[in-house]
C-alpha cells in the first residue's frame, strides 16, 4: 500500500507540468491578452500598453513566460488575479465550497437514485422496467448539460415558478459564510426561511449536474449486478435459505460495488467539468463560474491556477477511489 501511494505521488509532478502546459498553450492560443481585454475597444496609447505588458511580463517570449510560471508555482505561489489583484489561492478557497456543495449533492443524488435503479433493473432483467430504464439512461448519459439545464429552468422556474433561477440563496437572506457550505450555514442562521431557500436554489442544479452520473451509475450497477447474480456464491447464499432481498443486497450488491466505485471515481473529473457548465447556467458562484469569467477576461493567473487546483483535486479523488477499492475488495488487500 505504501509503495503504491509513493508511486502515485511521484506521478503528480509530470501531471502538474502537463496540466499547466496545456492550459498555458490553450489560453495563449486565444487572441487578446488581459491588458487588451481590459482596455476594450477604446484602446490606449501604444507606449502605455507596452509599459503595462512589461509589468505583467507579457512582452517576454512564450517559453520564458511558461518557465517563469512553473518556477513560481514550484515555489508555492499561484500569483494574483490580473482583474481583482486578489491571490488566486484566496479566491479559490472562497468559491470552492460552493462547487463542492453542488458536486457532492449531485453525486449523492446520482447514487441514491442510480444504485437502486440499477439493482432493480438487474433483478428484473428482460422486463419492461429494465428495457425502459436502460433506454432512458442512454438518453440521460448523453444529455447535453447546457440544453438540459435551460429546459429545466424553462419548465420548473419560468413556467411553473417552483424554483429560483439563479444563485445559492434568496436576496433577502444574509448568511454568515463560516463554513462556505450554504446548506450548513443557512441551517444555523437565525433566519427561518434561509435553509428552505438554500435547498430550493440547489435542487435544479443538482438534478442537472447529477443526470449524467445517475445514468452512468444505473447502467454500470445493472451490468455489474447481472454478472454477480450469475456467480456460484449467489447460489450458495440462496441455498442457505436467505431472503431474496438479503441475497441481492448483502451478497450481490456488495460484490457489484467494486466495479461501480471505480466508475464513480472516473465520474468525478466529468462531474467537475459538468459543474463548470452548470454553474454558468445557474449563476452558481463557484469555481466553474469563476473560471469561465477568467477566460472572458483573459485572467491568466486565475485560469492556470484554477485549472491546476482542479487537476490536483481530481487526482486526489482518484487516489481516494483506489484506496476505497482496496478496502472493498479483500482480494487485493494485503
Amino acid at each position, binding site marked *: 500500500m505504501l509503495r503504491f501511494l509513493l508511486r502515485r505521488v511521484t506521478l503528480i509532478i509530470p501531471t502538474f507540468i502537463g496540466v499547466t502546459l496545456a492550459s498555458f498553450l490553450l489560453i495563449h492560443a486565444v487572441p487578446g491578452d488581459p491588458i487588451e481585454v481590459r482596455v476594450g475597444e477604446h484602446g490606449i496609447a501604444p507606449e502605455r500598453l507596452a509599459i503595462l505588458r512589461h509589468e505583467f511580463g507579457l512582452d517576454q517570449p512564450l517559453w520564458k513566460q511558461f518557465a517563469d510560471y512553473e518556477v513560481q508555482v514550484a515555489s508555492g505561489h499561484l500569483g494574483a488575479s490580473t482583474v481583482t489583484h486578489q491571490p488566486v489561492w484566496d479566491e479559490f478557497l472562497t468559491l470552492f465550497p460552493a462547487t463542492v456543495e453542488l458536486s457532492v449533492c449531485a453525486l449523492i443524488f446520482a447514487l441514491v437514485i442510480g444504485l437502486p435503479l440499477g439493482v432493480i433493473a438487474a433483478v428484473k432483467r428482460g422486463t419492461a422496467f429494465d428495457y425502459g430504464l436502460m433506454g432512458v439512461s442512454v438518453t440521460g448519459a448523453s444529455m447535453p448539460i447546457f440544453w438540459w439545464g435551460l429546459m429545466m429552468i424553462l419548465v420548473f422556474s419560468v413556467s411553473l415558478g417552483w424554483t429560483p433561477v439563479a444563485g445559492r440563496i434568496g436576496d433577502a437572506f444574509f448568511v454568515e459564510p463560516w463554513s462556505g457550505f450554504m446548506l450548513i450555514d443557512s441551517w444555523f442562521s437565525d433566519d427561518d426561511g434561509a435553509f428552505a431557500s438554500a435547498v430550493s436554489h440547489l435542487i435544479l442544479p443538482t438534478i442537472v449536474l447529477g443526470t449524467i452520473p445517475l445514468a452512468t451509475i444505473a447502467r454500470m450497477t445493472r451490468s455489474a449486478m447481472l454478472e454477480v447474480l450469475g*456467480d*456460484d*456464491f449467489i*447460489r*450458495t*447464499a*440462496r*441455498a*442457505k*435459505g*436467505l*431472503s431474496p432481498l438479503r441475497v441481492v443486497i448483502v*451478497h450481490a450488491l*456488495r*460484490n457489484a460495488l467494486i466495479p461501480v466505485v471505480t466508475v464513480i471515481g472516473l465520474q468525478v473529473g466529468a462531474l467537475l467539468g459538468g459543474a463548470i457548465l452548470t454553474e454558468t447556467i445557474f449563476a452558481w458562484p463557484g469555481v466553474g463560474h469563476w473560471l469561465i469569467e477568467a477566460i472572458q477576461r483573459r485572467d491568466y493567473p486565475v485560469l492556470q491556477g484554477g485549472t491546476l487546483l482542479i487537476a490536483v483535486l481530481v487526482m486526489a479523488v482518484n487516489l481516494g477511489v483506489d484506496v476505497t477499492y482496496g478496502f*472493498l*475488495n*479483500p*482480494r487485493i488487500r494485503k
Partner: protein
Amino acid sequence: MALLEIRNLVVEFGRFRAVDGVDLTVEAGEILCVVGESGSGKSVSMLAVMGLIGWPGKVSADVMRFDGIDLLGLSPRARRKLVGRDIAMVFQEPTTSLNPCYPVGWQIAESLRAHNAVPRAQVRDRVIELLDQVGIPAPASRLGAFPHQLSGGMNQRVMIAMAISCNPRLLIADEPTTALDVTIQKQILDLLVDLQSKRGMALALITHDMGVVAETAHRVQVMYAGQMVEEQPTEALFTKPHHPYTAALLAALPERAMGASRLPTIPGMVPGIDDRPVGCLFNPRCGRVQEICRTSAPPLIGEAAKFRCYFPLGESA
C-alpha cells in the same frame, strides 16, 4: 416413511427437459449415491429439491415430500425455512461458491443467524466448533480468513461446516471433490461419510466416480440424459447390473479392466437438447440395441432393483 420422496420430477428449460420423470427416494440416515456422466441432470434435480431452479427453469413433480411436508405446496418463505436448515447442499467448486467479500467465519455465522440455530451470544463459539468438526486446524484463527486466502480443500471444509451448521437431516453433496487435488479428495469424502454416520443424517452424494460409490453408498441411482435408468442397493448393483449403461460404467473401473490394454470407454455422448433419440435414450450408444429400443421408450420396471431396459443384463432370458 422416507425422508425425501419424489415421484416423476421434471425440470424444463424452455423445450429442453434436463430432468425427465425422475423418482428419488432418500431414507433417513442412508447414503444414496447418484451417478452418471456430465449433463445427465444430477445437479439440476438436486437444485430442484433445494428450490434453487430459477427462471426460466420450470419444476414439476407428482410427489415432492420432505419428512411428509409437500415441498411444492409451501410458500417461498416457508420453503426457505427448510432449505439451509433441514436440507443443506455442498457444491462442486468450493472457492467460487464462497462469497469473496466476506470472511469465512462470517459466512458460516450467517447461516446460524438466518435460522436462529443458536442464541446470538453463542454464534462465534459454535462457528469455531463447526470449523473444528470439519477438520480445520486452529479454527479460531481462521474466522477472519477470506476464501482467497484458503486452499480449495479448506474452502470445501468451510462449505461443509456451513451446510451442517443447522444440523440438517439431509445433506446433498454435488460432486464435492471433483474440483480438488486427488490427495484431498479422499479426505473430504471421509469427512462427509464420518459426519453422516456421527450425526445420523442422510447423505445424497453426487459423483461420477464408481470407485467412490463402491466405498460409500448404501444405495445407488444411475442417471442418464435426465432419466433414472437403474437403481439398486450398492452390492447388488456392483455384482449384478441390469442396465447396459450401468454395466458400461462399471467396466470403465480400472480394477475391473485388468488385462485389457486400455480402459474401455463408452462411445458417443449424452444426448443434448437437439439430438434426443426416439425410444430408449441410450440406444445410439448401446451394444445390446434391438429394433424396439429405437421406437419405444422402456418403462422403469422391477422392485428391489429398478431399471429402464427391454434387454437387461443378468436376466436368464
